[in-house]
């Protein structure tokens, strides 16, 4: 295995709010290797986007408290100066945001915006060279008539095309790490499939290391190598793609799997659901954050379980649940499939 390009260790991000300190990310650790796709899965408020933004240095403010370590090839980013972070952003770490509609400046031509980003980082690139590179990138991400369309304004692009343009911009300086925060959520499924294939090709061909943030387990199954499942600011389960999908250990993961409407299975009479709603980070329950929504909750859950390997034959598969592996295997099967609880009649 190659050395990790990005190492995140015990990352904690808190925000001072009127209601007290909001611990958005609470001790997240992972490593990312070249060519690897790491998926971070979770619902709103799970801390997945704040984790990504903190890696990029985008959560720095008077009200935020950032602890832990983020290393890009050994270089510590948490304490790096703002100028250093500005240099890294775009150049070595690219980012694609969820909403292609609001991520471009509407009054500048798209090609110019890409060229400007390039020239801000590379003094020796001429305007003509930057434009030529923008055309090249448009072709690489599959935008037809690239030569003409670099001179279009954002409103002349459809959602899918704008998302491609944003990926083109993120790749302009050939970063080593790409952070994609819900890159396909706003897109139609047929366009989503194209964008996912594009990301996959880039991974394989350029050895791009990718963090893919999503709530869609279907997307995860298509492109990820490893998966982190986050809940209430913590990683509750971590493993390879197959470990997470075929031997999930945490009840929250079971709940996520069970509540999917799947085209590849017969329709269940009723969807197995997770009851309740995600917790407020200002009023996290004591112990395991998932406890109030978990039908398998017992006395020990008042204490937060450590994220550790609990299966003998899978040292990289870690989770935060007190149930024994035998109990888990027995309890996670609902009507022949993985789910959290038998649906009420």
């Amino acid at each position, binding site marked *: 295995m190659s050395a990790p390009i990005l190492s995140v260790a015990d990352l904690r991000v808190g925000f001072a709010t009127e209601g007290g300190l909001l611990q958005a990310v609470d001790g997240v650790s992972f490593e990312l290797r070249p060519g690897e796709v790491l998926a971070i899965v979770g*619902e*709103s408020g799970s801390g997945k986007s704040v984790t990504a933004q903190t890696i990029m240095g985008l959560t720095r403010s008077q009200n935020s408290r950032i602890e832990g370590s983020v290393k890009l090839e050994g270089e510590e980013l948490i304490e790096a100066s703002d100028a250093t972070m500005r240099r890294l952003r775009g150049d070595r770490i690219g980012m694609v945001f969820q909403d292609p509609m609001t991520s471009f400046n509407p009054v500048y031509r798209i090609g110019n915006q890409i060229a400007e980003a390039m020239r801000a980082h590379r003094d020796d690139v001429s305007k003509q060279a930057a434009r030529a590179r923008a055309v090249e990138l448009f072709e690489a991400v599959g935008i037809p008539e690239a030569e003409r369309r670099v001179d279009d304004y954002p409103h002349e692009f459809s*959602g899918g095309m704008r998302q491609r343009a944003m990926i083109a911009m993120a790749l302009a300086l050939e970063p080593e790490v790409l952070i994609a925060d819900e890159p396909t959520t706003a897109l*139609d*499924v*047929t366009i*989503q*499939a194209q964008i*996912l294939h594009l990301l996959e090709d880039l991974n394989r061909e350029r050895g791009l290391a990718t963090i893919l943030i999503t*709530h*869609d*387990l*279907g*997307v*995860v*199954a*298509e492109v990820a190598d490893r998966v982190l499942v986050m809940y209430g600011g913590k990683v509750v389960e971590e493993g390879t*793609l*197959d470990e997470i*999908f*075929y031997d999930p250990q945490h009840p929250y993961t079971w*709940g*996520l*799997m*069970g*509540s*999917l*409407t*799947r*085209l*590849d299975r017969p*329709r*269940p009479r*009723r*969807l*197995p*659901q*997770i*009851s309740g*709603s*995600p917790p407020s980070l200002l009023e996290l329950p004591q112990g395991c954050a998932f406890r109030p929504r978990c039908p398998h909750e017992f006395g020990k859950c008042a204490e937060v379980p450590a994220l550790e390997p609990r299966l003998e034959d899978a040292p990289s598969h870690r989770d935060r649940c007190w149930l024994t592996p035998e109990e888990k295997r027995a309890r996670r099967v609902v009507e022949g499939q993985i789910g959290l609880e038998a*649906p009420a009649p």
Partner: protein
Amino acid sequence: MSGEPLLEVTDLVKHFPIKRGILIDREVDQVRAVDGVSFTIEPGQTLGLVGESGSGKSTACRAVLQLIKPSSGSVRFEGREIAGLSQRQMRPLRREMQMIFQDPYASLNPRKRVGQIVGDPLKRQGVASGAELRKRVQALLERVGLAGEHYNRFPHEFSGGQRQRIGIARALALQPKLVIADEPVSALDVSIQAQIINLLDDLQDEFGLTYLFVAHDIGVVRHISDRIAVMNDGKIVEEGEVDQVCEHPRHEYTKKLLAAVPVPDPREARERAAR
């Protein structure tokens, strides 16, 4: 097929003019948002209308409810033609057909209390007032999984899923026969989507509701519907029983749509990629 359909839509068309010109607008072209759509829904059944953005599904819903005036075509509700009725003529019929919207953040008036939001339709139609109104609204809130004491709260105090429950309570307040749900779960977290889908299922059984369920997610539509209509470019390209359409799609567009949905099964995904 049983007796008379609740809703019968025939050749529904909605064209929007494209106008150009200084001072005098001339119509130079048309956007054929809905271009000859026909379907029927039997009482107590769910028709899922699936399609991508821009396919015309939301415009079709609005034209069915006469929220926008259809360019041509017929919409029969319980056998009665409603296309072209005036607002005044529609008013008594509005009790029978209600809508649930996509964005629970935009579809509730932030300055009104939950009790008002859910109770206003009852008041406007003169169904209930005073203590009776309050009792009915509280019962509705409880039925959709909220609590009676939420009556005096404002929408911003609720999560997305809870807001969608408020929207559902409002739609059900007048005990409608037809409920049109336009992307009711696509703005919600995954674990909340299942709750709302199950709630809609239960309410249908309990009140004998008929649904027109509009969504871009064919997985969700397949779960909740009896029949599916697939829409593309303003037209319905395929319509049939859920299992027929999902297992044996006939139209190329339906096949493309089904094939594009990611399967949450890594082995299956690898096989698909290898093919």
